[in-house]
């Protein structure tokens, strides 16, 4: 079955991003397809490459990136939400004349159209928020 996942909450104050990661791993293990993960609202903060968690704690950007590399996943970060929150790729860094980019590898900034497409083509869309 073809799934897409939408994540809305800050990975630092909400458990949602972590639950979504486990759900993503499990559905792949169970033989389903993960068409796309769409990071929206404060969940775009998950893609900040500067995140430096304590050594004994889960690093969500790194774990998402590892899962994406292994299974060639599409991790899409809402570009409007990301730019507003200071998560920039090289293009946006130039556009806004900032002195650094900080988008984690394997994540991609793109528009809400990617969410609409995910809804259109997926059998199940599961939202993680709150």
């Amino acid at each position, binding site marked *: 079955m073809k*799934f897409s996942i939408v994540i809305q909450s800050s990975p630092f104050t909400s*458990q949602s991003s972590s*639950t979504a990661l*486990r759900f993503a791993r499990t*559905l792949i293990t169970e033989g*389903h397809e993960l068409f796309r993960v769409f990071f929206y609202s404060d969940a775009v903060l998950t893609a900040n490459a500067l995140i430096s968690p304590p050594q004994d704690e889960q690093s969500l950007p790194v774990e998402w990136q590892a899962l994406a590399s292994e299974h060639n996943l599409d991790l899409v970060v809402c570009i409007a939400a990301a730019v507003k929150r200071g998560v920039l790729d090289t293009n946006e860094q130039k556009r806004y004349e900032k002195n650094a980019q900080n988008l984690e590898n394997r994540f991609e900034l793109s528009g809400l159209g990617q969410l609409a497409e995910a809804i259109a083509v997926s059998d*199940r*869309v*599961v939202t993680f928020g*709150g």
Partner: protein
Amino acid sequence: MTLHLLNKTQQNTALIERMLSTLSDGDQILLIEDGVYNALPHSESWIDSKDLKQSTYALVCDIEARGLSSRIRTDIEQVDDKGFVRLSCEAEKVVSWF
């Protein structure tokens, strides 16, 4: 059939009433994250008042994390992440309440 995900405690009465008002016969509810506290024995539980114990599930890792393994009601089925995925497939859609 719709699978409803609830990740907030029973204190969020407005949210839970809203979820309950959208239920169709045969819908299922999965308690995740802080939602698993709804499965503690409460004197005025919506699970009992709406007779939903047979359609309500609770995510086992969230139960364990919170120290609730020996405390929650035994008449609510616990599922692991595979069960979460299975329930999502069995349902026609998944609606999240948060």
